């Protein structure tokens, strides 16, 4: 990187930069050499940054009008929807923004799984990412409680009750979480506090995530190490900026359709009924983005083991860099892994669907099979595949791969159906 060579042209700039090298940082960010073959699956990092900032800005505005009190929360949300200027817009952006955030993060994670972005030397980036994902789930769950509707209340009751599965101290922990003997006002106020705090923790982790990324540089669809800067790279600005911008705008169009034309389709109707501890809804379901884990939780007959399975399903991702024994990063050159990858995608979608269905009969059976396969994929298939799989020869450079300079690459290109971005 050319960071060290950078000197501001103006005297003032130089004076300032010697004391706080912000200009060097800005220069590093604009010049940052990026692989020129990144496809659109790589634009979701930028989209996620946009999502986080959108959630923080709309969230701050909502917090100015929201009242975190069991007797007034529901009413204050209606006040925002009716009487605050453009309050309906801000709230719908925030509520649908959570879904958009998860949509983007799932694409981001599955992109990483396909191209092996979690492998050496990017393990720390990946683990920070998993922590961000966990915090996102916590923030989203607590945010869903704040409107104090029926699903808020009963969702909070179900999820906090999971902690009671812990032997000996479980009940005590639940009481401590609630701040009482049931989900009530103390629970609401602490959830509001934490919901306000977590996004800023995420923001800090995002800085670390990007910092850690800028050490080895981006992975790329070919999955090979490249020289930086070289003819395989382009400067971040303007090439990647404009491409990310284009993808972001496409994303915003989808986002806008939800906000303006079906703002409530992703939520549950019961959450427009004020929380009532005396009436339990017929089906308690979490938001769509938590459904796969909910399905895993329910597919285990034992409560404690169910909780363990659910948590393991997420935490197993943190050790993924060591479970995947293959030295080849990109699935483009791993014909078998590529197939197992798509089976995993289907498996997670099936789990999501089963999470929304009642846990009985055929649904439960399918959920159990899908849960078993989920763990099988990470614990058996991936470690074994690294030793058994016959991979396709990997090109030496991106330019070679793009231009098809050698016979090797012709094969590579033919197998590259996933990342063709035309």
């Amino acid at each position: 990187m050319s960071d060290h060579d950078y000197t501001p042209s103006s005297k003032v700039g130089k004076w300032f930069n010697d004391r706080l090298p912000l200009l060097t940082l800005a220069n590093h960010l604009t010049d940052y050499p990026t692989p020129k073959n990144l496809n659109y699956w790589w634009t979701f990092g930028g989209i996620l940054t946009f999502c986080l900032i959108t959630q923080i800005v709309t969230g701050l505005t909502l917090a100015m009008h929201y009242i975190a009190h069991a007797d007034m929360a529901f009413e204050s949300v209606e006040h925002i929807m009716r009487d605050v200027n453009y309050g309906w817009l801000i709230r719908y952006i925030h509520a649908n923004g959570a879904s958009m955030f998860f949509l983007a993060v799932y694409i981001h994670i599955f992109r990483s799984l396909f191209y092996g972005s979690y492998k050496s030397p990017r393990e720390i980036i990946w683990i920070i990412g998993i922590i961000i994902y966990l915090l996102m789930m916590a923030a989203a769950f607590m945010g869903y409680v704040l409107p104090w509707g029926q699903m808020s209340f009963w969702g909070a009751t179900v999820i906090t009750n999971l902690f009671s599965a812990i032997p000996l101290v479980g009940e005590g922990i639940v009481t401590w979480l609630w701040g009482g003997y049931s989900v009530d006002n103390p629970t609401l106020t602490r959830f509001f506090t934490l919901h306000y705090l977590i996004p800023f923790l995420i923001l800090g982790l995002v800085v670390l995530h990007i910092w850690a990324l800028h050490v080895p540089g981006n992975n790329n669809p070919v999955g090979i190490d490249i020289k930086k800067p070289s003819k395989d790279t382009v400067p971040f600005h303007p090439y990647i900026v404009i491409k990310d911008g284009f993808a972001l705008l496409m994303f915003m169009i989808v986002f806008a359709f939800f906000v303006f034309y079906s703002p409530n389709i992703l939520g549950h109707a019961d959450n427009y009924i004020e929380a009532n501890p005396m009436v339990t809804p017929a089906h308690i379901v979490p938001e769509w983005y938590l459904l796969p884990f909910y399905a895993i939780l329910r597919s285990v007959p034992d409560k404690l083991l169910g909780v363990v399975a659910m948590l393991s399903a997420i935490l197993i991702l943190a050790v993924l860099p060591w479970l995947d024994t293959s030295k080849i990063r990109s699935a483009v050159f791993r014909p078998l892994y590529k197939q197992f990858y798509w089976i995993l995608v289907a498996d997670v979608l099936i789990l999501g669907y089963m999470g929304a269905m009642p846990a009985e009969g055929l649904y439960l059976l399918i959920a159990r099979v899908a849960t078993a396969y989920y763990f099988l994929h990470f614990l058996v298939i991936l470690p074994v595949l690294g030793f058994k799989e016959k991979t396709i020869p990997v090109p030496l450079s991106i330019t070679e791969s793009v231009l098809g300079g050698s016979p090797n690459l012709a094969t590579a290109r033919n197998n590259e159906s996933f990342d063709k971005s035309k």
Partner: protein
Amino acid sequence: MKNLTKLFYILGFFFLTTAYSFSAEKVDYLKTDWSFKGLFGKFDRGSLQRGYQVYTEVCAACHSMKYLSYRNLGEKGGPEFSEAETKAIAASFEVLDGPNADGEMFTRPAKLSDKFVMPYENVKAAQAANGGAYPPDMSVLVKARGGGVDYIYSLLQGYEDAPSGMTLDDGVHYNKYMYGNKIKMSAPLSDGIIEYGDGTEATVEQMSKDVTTFLMWAAEPHLEARHQMGFKAIIYLIILTVLVYFSMKKIWSRVESEV
């Protein structure tokens, strides 16, 4: 680009199936043309005004609407009663105010800024008067039911004699669209139960449609503004996307790589 479109199709499908699976009861509701659906959907002003009449003369006897104020009836995008009409509507209700300088509570005619007067003092009183069932607040009722407007519209017309073999307790009625088919509310509408000010014939179907339209507005008072802004926002985003797309092509033409 092809992949992006494919992606959006997959996600669209996934969202739709998920959303569909959330609506637990899969009943075929009665269908009607709602003027407020679609990209340019707007409320039918006449229907909203008639719907208010149905609400206030029929539903309001038991159902509160505690998040609405009388001023809302005159606001843009709603029934849009004139200011004089809205004030007259408000003044026809008595509200409790106070305490005054002597420390006494007193009643006065409602003003535009007052919330809709509630039929019962509290939930317990409402339950006591309705055989233990609480008539739900109607402010956001449409959004609080899985089937939305179609459900409410159908429910109002769904009263039938119970099928043979089904025994109903005293004060319980059969409704083919109600969850579990048993409802404590007796059929609220019958032909000619009210007389519309604008001369429209007050059939059960007409009243159901009008009052459901009114409830939709009550739950989403800014629906028209939302649709209008949404259209402008999306057109703006599409134009900007096209411009950025061509800029991107131009910039990337400098390197021998494709975007």
